[in-house]
């Protein structure tokens, strides 16, 4: 119930709103086809609460995101990803940012719905045919009958006095409208149908079956491929399974050279090398030794490699077992085949290097170890003639230096 009055333009609408407010009216509403600056202020309303709702929503979203990530990543199921701490803020920022925006947007949407009393499928003003022009070319002002100053005749006279082109009462239409039966039936049917999926899920969730419970997407189950022992028209022998190419040998089946591959001769560790010993092999051994062995056993084989130095010197690990010196009598006396087995299979805390060092390289390394061992019992006679003099002069310098001190 109320009165709907039409005015000529935005300026008169503003003026009337201000007048009504001064007269003490509170429950009135202005309608214009486009936003009119100053109209909101003229109606004397407080500024909307919406920004605060959005801020509240945004803050809640941000906090919810951080709480969620903290709970899932750091408390409920701690899981280290990419070496980061379980609770690490930088990783949480994108989610927090997105949820801040999402919750802010939802708060804006919900806030508008609530503050504007939406959804409002029917409003008494819709009964006025004239009112449709409010979104085209007319400026209206309505006063609700619930306003304490409202008086059907007096208010209408006041509006006319203020310049209204018309001031007509409006009210809810008398004819009562009911929802048709077929609409009700359709809604009931849809509701019943909506119950079917959860009912089915509940049924498969709590029953036992040998086949998959619920199998909606079948595309990986039926593939256009041949299974073992199937017939195929593509080949002359009609078999889908293809035999290996003539002369194929299974991996590791053909060559069995006990000496080369296992370092054995006659069931005992081999004393000799399975290949000719050359300077080339020696150089190769030196290179591979420096790569794979020197980190623990040291460049000269004393068992003082980099790992050992780090552990002993920096971490002061008391339980650390030093890598063996290759110059110990027990190591020196080992036949080449036994060294080979150590590299291939590992020994005590040393792991197997079979996956890193190919067979030939293992033997090359052993050759280089032999050279390292031999270097410790060399005499001046082992040094080539032309280098001997140089070595002696170094020796002389060293002794004369010792004498001086």
């Amino acid at each position, binding site marked *: 119930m109320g009165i709907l009055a039409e005015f000529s333009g*935005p300026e008169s609408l503003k003026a009337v709103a201000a007048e009504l407010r001064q007269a003490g009216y509170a429950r009135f509403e202005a309608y214009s086809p*486009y*936003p009119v*600056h100053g109209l*909101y202020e003229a109606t004397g309303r407080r500024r909307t609460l919406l*920004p605060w709702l959005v*801020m509240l929503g945004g803050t809640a979203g941000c906090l919810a995101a951080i709480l969620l990530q903290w709970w899932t990543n750091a408390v409920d199921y701690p899981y280290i990803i*990419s*070496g*980061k701490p379980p609770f690490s803020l*930088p*990783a949480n*920022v*994108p989610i927090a940012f997105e949820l801040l925006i999402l919750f802010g947007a939802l708060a804006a949407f919900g806030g508008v719905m609530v503050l504007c009393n939406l959804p409002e499928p029917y409003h008494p003003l819709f009964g006025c045919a004239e009112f449709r022009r409010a979104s085209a070319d007319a400026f209206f002002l309505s006063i609700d009958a619930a306003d304490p100053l409202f008086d059907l005749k007096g208010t209408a006279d006041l509006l006319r006095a203020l310049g209204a082109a018309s001031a007509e009462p409006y009210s809810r239409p008398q004819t009562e409208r009911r929802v048709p039966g077929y609409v009700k039936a359709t809604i009931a049917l849809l509701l019943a149908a909506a119950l079917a999926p959860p009912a089915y899920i509940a049924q498969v969730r709590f029953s036992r079956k040998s086949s998959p419970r619920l199998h909606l997407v079948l595309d990986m189950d039926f593939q256009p491929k041949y299974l073992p022992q199937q017939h195929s028209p593509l080949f002359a022998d009609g078999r889908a399974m293809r035999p290996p190419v003539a002369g194929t040998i299974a991996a590791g089946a053909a060559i069995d050279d006990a000496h080369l591959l296992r370092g054995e001769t006659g069931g005992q560790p081999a004393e000799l090398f399975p290949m000719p010993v050359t300077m080339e092999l020696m150089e190769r051994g030196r290179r591979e030794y420096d790569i794979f062995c020197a980190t623990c056993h040291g460049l000269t084989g004393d068992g003082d490699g980099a790992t050992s130095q780090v552990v002993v010197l920096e971490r002061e690990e008391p339980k650390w077992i030093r890598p063996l010196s290759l110059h110990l009598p027990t190591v020196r006396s080992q036949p080449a085949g036994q060294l080979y087995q150590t590299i291939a299979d590992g020994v005590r805390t040393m792991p197997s290097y079979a996956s890193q060092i190919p067979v030939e390289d293992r033997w090359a390394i052993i050759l280089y170890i032999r050279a390292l061992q031999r270097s410790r019992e060399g005499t001046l006679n082992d040094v080539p003639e032309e280098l001997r003099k140089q070595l002696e002069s170094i020796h002389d310098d060293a002794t004369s230096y010792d004498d001086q001190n």
Partner: protein
Amino acid sequence: MMQHHTTIKIEDDRTHLAASNFPAVAASIAVGMILLIVAGAIGRPAGQGDSYTLLAASYLVSYLFFLSISLGALFFVVLQHLVRAGWSTAVRRLAEILAANLVWWGILFLPILVPVLLGKSDLYAWSIPGAAAADELLRHKGPYLNPAFFAARAVFYFVVWGLSAWFFLKWSTRQDESGDPAVTERLEKTAPAAMILFGLTVTFAAFDWLMSLTPEWFSTIFGLYFFAGSVVAALAAMILFAAALQAGGTARRVITIEHYHDLGKLLLGFVVFWGYMAFSQYMLIWYANIPEETVWYLERQTGPWTWITAGLLFGHLLIPFLGLLSRTVKRSRVLLSFWAVWMLAMHWIDLYWLVMPTFAPDRLPLGIMNWLCLSGVGCLFLAGVLWNARRRSLVPLGDPRLNESLAFENF
């Protein structure tokens, strides 16, 4: 149709500065030169307190600080034409004047460029002869990072910026008298090309002048980071420019609180954009954790630089975000001016943080040198602004969208 009640009469307002501001310009140049000469005079060879390296780095920070204000202003001008904005017409001339310093700003780049060409730069390690030979990475980057190409690029940037700034100011000023709408159409047609060139030049200028201070390090988003900070600085400078003019009795009616409100909104937006860029850069590097990338942040996360890094996170993003959020703040000249000063200070700290850790990884080199350079270059910048503002309306009087801008209201 939106209707405009133009209650603001431009005739009632002062739109020009005092007839002759030549003494102010001359004084500003003189003071600026003296301050810079003093800074140069107290410079000492490397290894001592106020070393030449520190002088060069301080000069670079100051130089880029004012350059970025002009660049941000140029972006603002081009953007308004690009989107055919109506609201901003009343304040666009301020941005045009700030941007017009780009016409001659290249001269002040010479103290940075000449040492690079002579192979004696204290700033750019890659430019020292022999540096590339010792470093595989620098050798690889050699085709890009070499003094000749560096200089050629700098010339190109200044030509593009100078021409754009000059073009938009000149035609807009011409329109003041003619009121010819064809000028607006012409500027709008030029804006897309100017914007594309602007984006490319700013990105590569940031790569050249800031990122190559640590030549081994790289970040493809770095140009955008510098750009975001520049726009923040320019908007803050425009707010202060407008407030200063109005306090002095110019454009009191033409520039309304609605314009401040919108400049404040843009400032808030670009504060967040800066944070978005800064975090986008940080997040990828932090997550991948590759030494060649993290080294740059490690330098800024150790020792006293930790505090500057944290200070930027709070001072350049979180605190101004909350501070500028409210409508009331953005519609208050005093409060908005406060945040504009705050953001300018933060932008200076941002540039300081980008440049200095390379030269002083274990301390904050803060002293007379910084202030001499900042105030010296600042005086020259001010002289340029006064010079650009002379004999010219501070409002685009002939712009066909001026009425729309005057009638503009926020809801």
